């Protein structure tokens, strides 16, 4: 082993925060921007949570709550879906965790474009404000469903067809602008700003997940942007991109020749990668939670990386499995069913590798670990039901039923949220310097985990009966038994309980900020760089005078012959801290400066 002295680093004067305004409001520090993104996403997510409870009130006790009429019900459906997928999960995983973790985990002082990063947050906030303004325009928000399918989305007969759809599309366009600024930044930072010794194959899986998800976003969001712009033109200028000749409510409309199915192709060309834009960061983060708290290296790191890349690539050729009953050419079904089921293979391998990471570990059952285990269960469940829906002919009776609702909530609602919670319990000590309360955390976990399973597991069976989704009420159906209505009531009760318990989580976030136990710099005894900062919370610039140098991969837990059961990535090789072959995947182990990291100083 050759000892490589840390590089001298000159001070950076790019964007020193010196006033309250530049430190907390117009901040260019990735850590502050991460918190801004996260708090905004959580706030808007709470709105979406309340909307879901409104839906459950109507479904559990139809007609009892007069303030929920069909218009408002469909507005709840639409806003809940769109907020959760885009404005909460996408923004939180990439704008929140991505912003916080990329520079810290890679040993960088900040994102490579700090000003652009700041701009990204403020445009995101603007998109949220425009979205929320939907509630204050005449007619309220759009009720077209989060898929916004034309012609319905812009015709009378759908709530918010005058104004709500316009604010929705404008907000989406703004969001995409914000995402693009942030996304280019994340990709460039990962490729350009890694510290010495941080090869790509030494990066923690969190970064791999966020990195690939960002690339997916940069390629997929443009499809949504153009479809939003085209739909806006159809609505406002009278073009006919998606509008054929139509008689609406007895009136011949002035459209002709457009294709509603074209919109669906564009939407899902974005929409399916979007599932993985949410899922891949969750895969990455949960891998790091499992490894850290099982005190064991992630099992099959290289396969995990390639699985992330493979899933990301395949996610662009499966989109029309959302359209098996859309009236598109039915022969597409053969292709898309095949690609969809192929994607199950790398996904299943990830699940195996998570469970094999636990095998022969030394498992600490703390709150982040509990959420990670919860994720394995809900994701396995939700992933397997995807094999029903992806297999084209099996999808035919199940599409547009509650089976679909149960499937996608389990796989891209509950599962990523499990990871979000686990990750917040895991990284909150680094962000604030204090631990979240453990007892409140356990209570939060148990109710959330068991409650969501009680909500979504039985819901699959409503789908088998054939109960259609997006129905305001189920009156006089011969084929729906009375017991299914009772089941709906029970699901609603579980949903209200789970919803209420999230207040405990918020209380924990607030109370622990002042009163939580002091965390120290590395409370979980983790290996990755963000836990090795000189200050906690990390100061502006993250690393003090010298950037860390990386000597090993991110998963040196329980290395044979090492003094401790974890070896930080920046721990130089010594007798107490041996370097294994795995630490140097595709990299000359004798000299960290020879390859890998590209950034030698700030």
């Amino acid at each position: 082993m050759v000892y490589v002295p840390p590089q001298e680093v000159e001070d950076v004067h790019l964007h020193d925060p010196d006033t309250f305004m530049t430190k907390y409001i117009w901040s260019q520090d990735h850590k502050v921007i991460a918190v801004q993104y996260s708090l905004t996403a959580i706030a808007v997510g709470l709105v979406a949570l309340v909307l879901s409870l409104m839906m459950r009130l109507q479904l559990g006790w139809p007609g009892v709550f007069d303030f929920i009429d069909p218009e408002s019900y469909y507005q709840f459906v639409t806003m809940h879906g769109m907020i959760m997928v885009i404005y909460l999960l996408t923004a939180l995983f990439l704008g929140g965790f991505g912003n916080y973790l990329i520079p810290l985990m890679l040993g960088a002082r900040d994102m490579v474009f700090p000003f652009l990063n700041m701009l990204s947050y403020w445009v995101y906030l603007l998109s949220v404000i425009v979205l929320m303004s939907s509630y204050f325009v005449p007619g309220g928000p759009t009720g077209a469903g989060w898929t916004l399918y034309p012609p319905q989305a812009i015709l009378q007969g759908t709530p918010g067809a005058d104004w709500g759809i316009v604010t929705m599309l404008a907000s989406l366009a703004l969001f995409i602008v914000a995402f693009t600024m942030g996304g280019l930044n994340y990709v460039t930072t990962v490729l350009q700003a890694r510290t010495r010794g941080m090869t790509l194959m030494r990066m923690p899986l969190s970064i791999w997940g966020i990195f690939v998800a960002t690339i997916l976003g940069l390629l997929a969001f443009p499809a949504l942007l153009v479809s939003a712009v085209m739909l806006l033109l159809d609505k406002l200028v009278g073009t006919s991109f998606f509008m054929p000749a139509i008689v609406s409510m007895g009136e011949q409309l002035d459209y002709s020749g457009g294709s509603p199915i074209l919109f669906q192709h564009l939407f899902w060309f974005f929409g399916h990668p979007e599932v993985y834009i949410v899922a891949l960061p969750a895969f990455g983060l949960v891998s790091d939670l499992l490894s850290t708290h099982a005190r064991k290296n992630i099992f099959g790191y290289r396969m995990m990386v390639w699985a992330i890349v493979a899933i990301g690539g395949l996610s662009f050729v499966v989109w029309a499995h959302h359209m098996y009953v859309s009236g598109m050419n039915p022969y597409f079904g053969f292709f898309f069913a095949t690609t969809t089921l192929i994607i199950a293979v790398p996904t299943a391998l990830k699940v195996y590798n998570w469970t094999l990471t636990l095998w022969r570990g030394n498992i600490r059952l703390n709150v982040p670990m509990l959420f990670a285990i919860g994720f394995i269960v809900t994701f396995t469940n939700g992933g397997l039901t995807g094999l029903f829906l992806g297999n084209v002919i099996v999808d035919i009776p199940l599409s547009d039923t509650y089976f679909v609702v149960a499937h996608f909530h389990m796989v891209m609602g509950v599962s990523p949220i499990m990871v979000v919670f686990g990750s917040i319990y895991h990284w909150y000590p680094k962000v604030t310097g204090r631990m979240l309360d453990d007892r409140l955390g356990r209570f939060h976990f148990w109710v959330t985990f068991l409650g969501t399973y009680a909500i979504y597991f039985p819901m699959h069976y409503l789908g088998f009966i054939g109960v259609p989704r997006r129905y305001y009420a189920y009156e006089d159906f011969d084929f729906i038994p009375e017991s299914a209505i009772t089941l709906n009531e029970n699901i609603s009760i579980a949903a209200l309980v789970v919803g209420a318990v999230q207040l405990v989580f918020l209380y924990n976030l607030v109370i622990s900020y002042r009163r939580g136990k002091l965390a120290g710099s590395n409370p979980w005894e983790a290996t990755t760089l963000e836990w090795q900062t000189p200050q906690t919370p990390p100061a502006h610039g993250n690393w003090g005078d010298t950037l860390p140098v990386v000597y090993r991969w991110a998963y040196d837990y329980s290395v044979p012959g090492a003094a401790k059961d974890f070896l930080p990535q920046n721990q130089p090789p010594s007798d107490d801290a041996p370097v294994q072959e795995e630490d140097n995947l595709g990299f000359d182990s004798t000299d960290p400066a020879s390859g890998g990291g590209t950034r030698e100083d700030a």
Partner: protein
Amino acid sequence: MAIVIVLVLMAVGSVLFHIWTPWWFTEVASNWGAIDELIVFTFAITGFVFVAVVLFTAYAIYKFRYKEDRRADYEPENKKLEFWLTVVTAIGVMALLAPGLAVWADFVTVPEGAEEFEVVGEQWNWTFRFPGADGKLGTADVANITYDNPFGMNADDPNGQDDVLIEDYEVHLPIGSPIKVLLRSKDVLHDFWVPQFRAKMDLVPGLESHFWFTPTREGTFDLLCAELCGVGHYTMRGKVTIESEEAFKAWLAAYPTYAETVPAPSDTGGGAASGQ
């Protein structure tokens, strides 16, 4: 250790729930019973994987719970194990996909000589059209739709003159022979679905979609819209009655042909419903 007990209970409980559930398919009323069998088969495979993963996880958590004086294993990779897991998973996925695609091939191949009828959707009603004595549906166009010509029939098309127009929420179909359902929408997306038939398909304005099935059981079934079509989506309902060929013909005879509706447009609306 509570998590270990809970995981075991979840695995076992999910299986028991599945066995004892009162909520299952309606009795099938078409030739697509093979889909039900595929779902049961998929359940067997996926259910096994789910239970195996959850129980393995629970066992690992129990067996390798934290002990101060123990070290975890250091095992970054196990190429052999990873290889076999990949192979077994790929085989399982192919076992699901192959029969699925085989049934799909049937689904997309409409049998020769299938009887055609047309479903026309609008917010928030179903209407239906049968080809009449000549066995051919006349052409129709959204541009022709007026109050007096709700189907948009092309007045010059001889094939359309004997088409039977049914402006009613209930349609009857004969049992036992394949039927090709042609789907057309005047305004927005809709989806023609009878849960007992298993099959469904969207109605798309601007194009004609289709699917086929053979009714196999007599009875009257709920017809519903399965594609969000605006604020009245949940009220877009109908009935489909499957009956013998004779009963069907008698029912159909009570409805007017297009030619009959032209000279006296005022007869089209309410009068037609008296046919049952």
